[in-house]
C-alpha cells in the first residue's frame, strides 16, 4: 500500500466568480515510503495547489487524499499535518519568533510535546540544517537569506514528518546556498527514511537527487517516470515550457552530431563518464 495517495483530485479556485480557475484536475498520484520524488512543471501548472492537498491544508473540490490508507478529510484530525510536513515557497517569510530556537520549536510545541522533547527536537533539526548553537539564540531577522531559509526548513523538520514536501526549496539562492539546502534535506531523508517530495521548476536541482519525476502541465500529470525517461524527452519538455538538464541537452546535441551517446544521460558526472568511455 502506498504511504500517500490521491484519487481524482481536483481543485477549483473561486468557483462561481469571474476569477474561477481549475488549478488541478483528476490527479491520481502515489508515493511510497522512503521514495524521493521530484515534481516539476512551469509556473502556474498547479504544483503548489497539489501539494497543499497532501497534508489537508486545501480541501479538494472533488476527489480524495489518502495517508496510510485513510482519507485525510474524513476525520478532522490535525495530526496529518505533523506526519506530512510541508515547507512553503520562501519559508523565511513565515519566521516570527524572537529567537531561531523558539521559531523552530513552534511546530513541536503545537504537537503538544513536553519541554524537554521540544528542546531535543530543535537541536536535532538544527543539526540537519547545520545551524550552530550560537545561531539558535539569534533573532531570525539577523540571519542571511540562506540561513533564514535553513532555519525555516528546520522548523518543519523538527516535527519529524514521515513525508517531507518542499515547494521550491532552493528558489532565489546562490549556487552554494542551493547545494547546501538540498544537502540538508537529503541528510534528513537518509536519517529517518522519510518520503521526500521536492517541487521545483529547475531540472538541475532534482536531476542529481530524485528517483522519480512527476511532470505537471496545466493542472494534469503529463509525465511520471524515472529521471532518465523524462529527461530524454527534450522536445516535449521544451513544448511544456521547461528545459531538460544541461547535461541531457549537451548529450542530445552531440548525439545529433553523430556521436554515439546513450539517451539516459542527464547529469554532468554521467556525461563525463560517457565521454571518457568514448575517448578510450
Amino acid at each position, binding site marked *: 500500500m502506498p504511504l500517500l495517495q490521491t484519487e481524482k483530485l481536483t481543485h477549483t479556485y473561486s468557483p462561481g466568480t469571474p476569477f474561477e480557475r481549475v488549478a488541478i484536475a483528476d490527479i491520481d498520484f502515489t508515493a511510497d515510503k522512503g521514495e524521493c520524488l521530484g515534481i516539476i512543471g512551469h509556473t502556474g501548472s498547479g504544483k503548489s495547489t497539489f501539494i497543499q492537498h497532501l*497534508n489537508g*491544508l486545501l480541501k479538494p473540490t472533488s476527489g480524495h487524499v489518502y495517508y496510510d490508507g485513510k482519507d485525510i478529510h474524513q476525520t478532522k484530525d*490535525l495530526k496529518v499535518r505533523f506526519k506530512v*510536513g510541508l515547507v512553503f515557497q520562501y519559508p523565511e517569510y*513565515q519566521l*516570527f519568533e524572537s529567537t531561531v530556537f523558539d521559531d523552530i520549536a*513552534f511546530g513541536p510545541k503545537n504537537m503538544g510535546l513536553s519541554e524537554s522533547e521540544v528542546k531535543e527536537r530543535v537541536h536535532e533539526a538544527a543539526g540537519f540544517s547545520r545551524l550552530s548553537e550560537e545561531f539558535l539564540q539569534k533573532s531570525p531577522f539577523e540571519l542571511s537569506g540562506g540561513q533564514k531559509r535553513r532555519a525555516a526548513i528546520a522548523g*518543519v523538520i523538527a516535527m519529524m514528518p514521515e513525508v517531507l514536501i518542499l515547494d521550491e526549496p532552493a528558489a532565489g539562492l546562490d549556487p552554494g546556498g542551493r547545494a547546501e539546502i538540498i544537502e540538508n534535506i537529503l541528510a534528513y531523508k537518509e536519517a529517518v527514511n522519510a518520503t521526500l517530495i521536492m517541487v521545483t521548476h529547475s531540472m538541475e536541482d532534482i536531476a542529481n537527487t530524485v528517483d522519480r519525476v512527476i511532470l505537471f502541465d496545466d493542472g494534469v500529470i503529463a509525465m511520471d517516470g524515472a529521471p532518465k525517461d523524462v529527461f530524454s524527452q527534450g522536445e516535449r519538455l521544451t513544448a511544456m515550457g521547461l528545459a531538460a538538464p544541461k547535461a541531457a541537452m549537451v548529450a542530445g546535441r552531440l548525439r545529433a552530431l553523430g556521436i554515439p551517446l546513450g539517451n539516459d544521460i542527464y547529469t554532468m558526472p554521467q556525461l563525463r563518464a560517457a565521454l571518457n568511455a568514448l575517448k578510450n
Partner: protein
Amino acid sequence: MLKNITLGQYFPGDTIVHRLDPRVKLVLTIVYIAALFSAQGIWGYVLMFAVLVTCFALSRIPVKTVLRGVRPILIIIIFTAVLNIFFTDGETVLFQAWRITITQEGLYAAAFMVTRLFMLITGTFLLTYTTSPIALTDGLELLLNPLKKIRLPIHELAMMMSIALRFIPTLIEETGKIMQAQKARGADFESGGLIKRARAVLPLIIPLFISAFRRADELAIAMESRCYHGGEGRTRMKVLKTQARDYMALFGGAAVLAAVIILRRLAL
C-alpha cells in the same frame, strides 16, 4: 474565510456601467445618495429601487455577489431596525409589555430605515464593483483638483489611496499564504477562547507586518528611482474623456433627483 471579503471589490466586466467615466460615476453616486435621502413616502422609494435594480441589471453583477457583499454589514442593519422598532414614539400601539412598546410608526420607521440603508450600501457598492481602483482614484483626484487651490494635498491623498487599494489584494493573498504556512506547522487559528485566539494571530501578524514594511520600502525605492516627485507636471497615460453616454447618464441622474423631489413635494 478570506475569500469572503468581497466588500465592494472590483468585479471586472465590459458593460456600459463599467465604461462610464469614473468622474461621472462618482458624481452620480453622490446624486444617488442625495436622492435617496430626499425620498419620502412609498413612491419615492419605489422609484429609487427601480433605478438601483436597473443599474445593477445593466452592470450584469450577479445578485449573489451583491448579497454576499451586504453580509458583513448585516449586523448594522439589524441593529438599526431594532433601535427604530423600540425607540420610535407613535400613537398606534401594537404591542406593550413591561417597558417595551411597539408602535405601527416604529415598524414603518424601521422598514424605511432598513430599506434606505440597504439601498445606500448596495448603491455605493455598484460604484466600486464596476470601477477599477485605479480609475476610481484617478476620477477622485480630477474631481477634487480645484481644492489644490486652497493647498490641500489632493495628489498625495489620491496616491496614498491608490497605493492602499493596490495592496489590499496583495496583503490578503499574503495573509492567506502565511496562514497556510503556519497551519502546516500545526498553528490553530480556529479554536480556543479569546485569549488563545489572540495569541494565535501573533505568528500571522508579525510576518505580515514585516512583509508590509518591506514592500513599502521597496515601493518607495522603485518610485524614487523612476524620479517620482509628486504630482507637479505629471501627465497621464490614460486621459479621461467624457462621451455622449456620460452626459446622458448625468442627465438621467438629474432627472431622478428632480423626480424624487417632486414626489416629495406632492407628498405621495
